[in-house]
């Protein structure tokens, strides 16, 4: 059974339709990366899935699991609440404190429960946000460029951490990124969005380094970047 099911989904700002997805099904437990140029509608689609776009005009049917967590680009921790209180925001009942401790240990932040968020590094803050997202055992994890603000090294570590935790909790994941390499590192399925439409729906299965390069070229081509330009950019960078 599909965990996420979209039919004739449109969203528009004024006269401009920025999202127009005829149909999309995502299987339970699937890890989907959504890539696309800036302004292609990735965040719009993610916010529609998260139910955060009540004020945006649009139409269509969305079927998503009730238990959803959202991981934002900023860690979005409440600065006046301790790390543990941030993790358990919105949770009730006994055992909430233990759950926080476990979730924090899972992201390698055991013992930081009582710290203020301002005492953590950017990467650590994003790990707290990850703990907050996973502690409520979501069936669907939605992430909008969650590692966009992190340095390359921290980002690689976060990839490994996310892969491990997702393997453990098995939520369905939709992760927005503009980084093809990030998509290839994480996704079982990559969707390329252009002008609000899904123009490529692809399951990369690279076995060798050459495969990986081919996949990379393919995704970049779908994004309108030919390999020549991208390598030249890499060399001059």
């Amino acid at each position, binding site marked *: 059974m599909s965990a996420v099911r979209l039919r004739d989904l449109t969203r528009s700002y004024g006269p401009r339709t920025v999202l127009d997805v005829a149909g999309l099904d995502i299987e339970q437990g699937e890890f989907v990366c959504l890539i696309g140029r800036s302004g292609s509608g990735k965040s719009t689609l993610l916010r529609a899935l998260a139910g955060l776009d009540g004020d945006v005009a649009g139409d269509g049917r969305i079927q998503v699991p009730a238990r959803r967590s*959202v991981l934002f680009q900023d860690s979005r921790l409440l600065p*006046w609440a301790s790390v543990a209180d941030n993790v358990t925001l919105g949770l009730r009942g006994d055992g909430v404190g233990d759950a926080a401790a476990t979730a924090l240990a899972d992201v390698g932040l055991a013992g930081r429960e009582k710290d203020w968020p*301002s005492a953590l590094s950017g990467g650590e803050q994003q790990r707290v946000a990850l703990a907050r997202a996973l502690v409520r055992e979501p069936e669907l994890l939605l992430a909008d460029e969650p590692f966009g603000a992190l340095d390359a090294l921290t980002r690689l570590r976060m990839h490994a951490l996310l892969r491990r935790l997702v393997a453990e909790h098995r939520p369905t994941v939709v992760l927005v990124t503009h980084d093809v390499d990030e998509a290839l590192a994480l996704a079982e399925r990559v969707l390329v969005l252009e002008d609000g439409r899904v123009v490529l729906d692809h399951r990369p299965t690279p076995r060798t380094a050459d495969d990986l390069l081919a996949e990379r070229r393919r995704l970049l081509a779908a994004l309108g970047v030919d390999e020549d330009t991208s390598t030249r950019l890499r060399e001059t960078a």
Partner: protein
Amino acid sequence: MTTTPIRPAPEVRHDALAGADSHVRLRRLAPRQLGALGLGIGPLVALVVWQVASSTGLLPEQQLASPLTAVTTGWEMLTTGELLPHVAASARRAYLGLGIGVALGLGLALLSGLTRSGEAAVDSLVQIKRAIPTLALIPLAILWLGIGETMKVAVIATAVLVPIYLNTHAGLRSIDQRYVELAQTTDVGRAEFIRRIALPGSLPGFLTGLRLAVTMCWTSLVVLEQINATEGIGYVMNRARDFGQTDVIVVGLVIYAVLGLASDALVRVVQGRALSYRKGMGS
């Protein structure tokens, strides 16, 4: 509660002369905080000039008593036990008015900051009240409430209400929309939203309002205590004016200043502790 707000490193000197070697330091974009000593320089200079002017006869006693005379008078009034009942009477009025005003201001701010209908009902009323000077309300207050204590406390409360309301309301309004989204995605209900996001988010604004309020609650007293009062610092000062005792007037002014500054310092301590989660510049 394991972290403390950032303080300047101990080796940083705070006297006004530090900075002579500042060219070797990193340039700071935010000004260094002045220590208590630095902040005291202005008043100290003013005091010396004042004393010199008095001693040389430049400033006659009937215009303004010299600092030394005022200190002597103040000490006498204190030791004879004449002063304390007046201070107590004023403090009672000021803090009763403060308490009622803070409660009202906070309640109205929450009403107006958290509900649309509340805002429609409350906000413009308070804005109008803000435009009217407190003392201009006294005639009406007397007609409604008489010339007794009730009227005095009510006037103080309505004065105090304004900065509390304005700052708390602004604090609530400025709560980041991103936190509202966060609440939506974490199943935070209305009550929990108020408790864990709205109240802590508006606390800095409320405390700024409180700092203004604690000094403000004293300022209306001088005028209010001209009306049917037999006790209070304002009463003492007005009587002194009738007798031309400028030293007593100075004593009254000093008491106001000390009480105002002490209250402000107290709120700043509370502020520092309550907002210790922030690593900020200055306060």
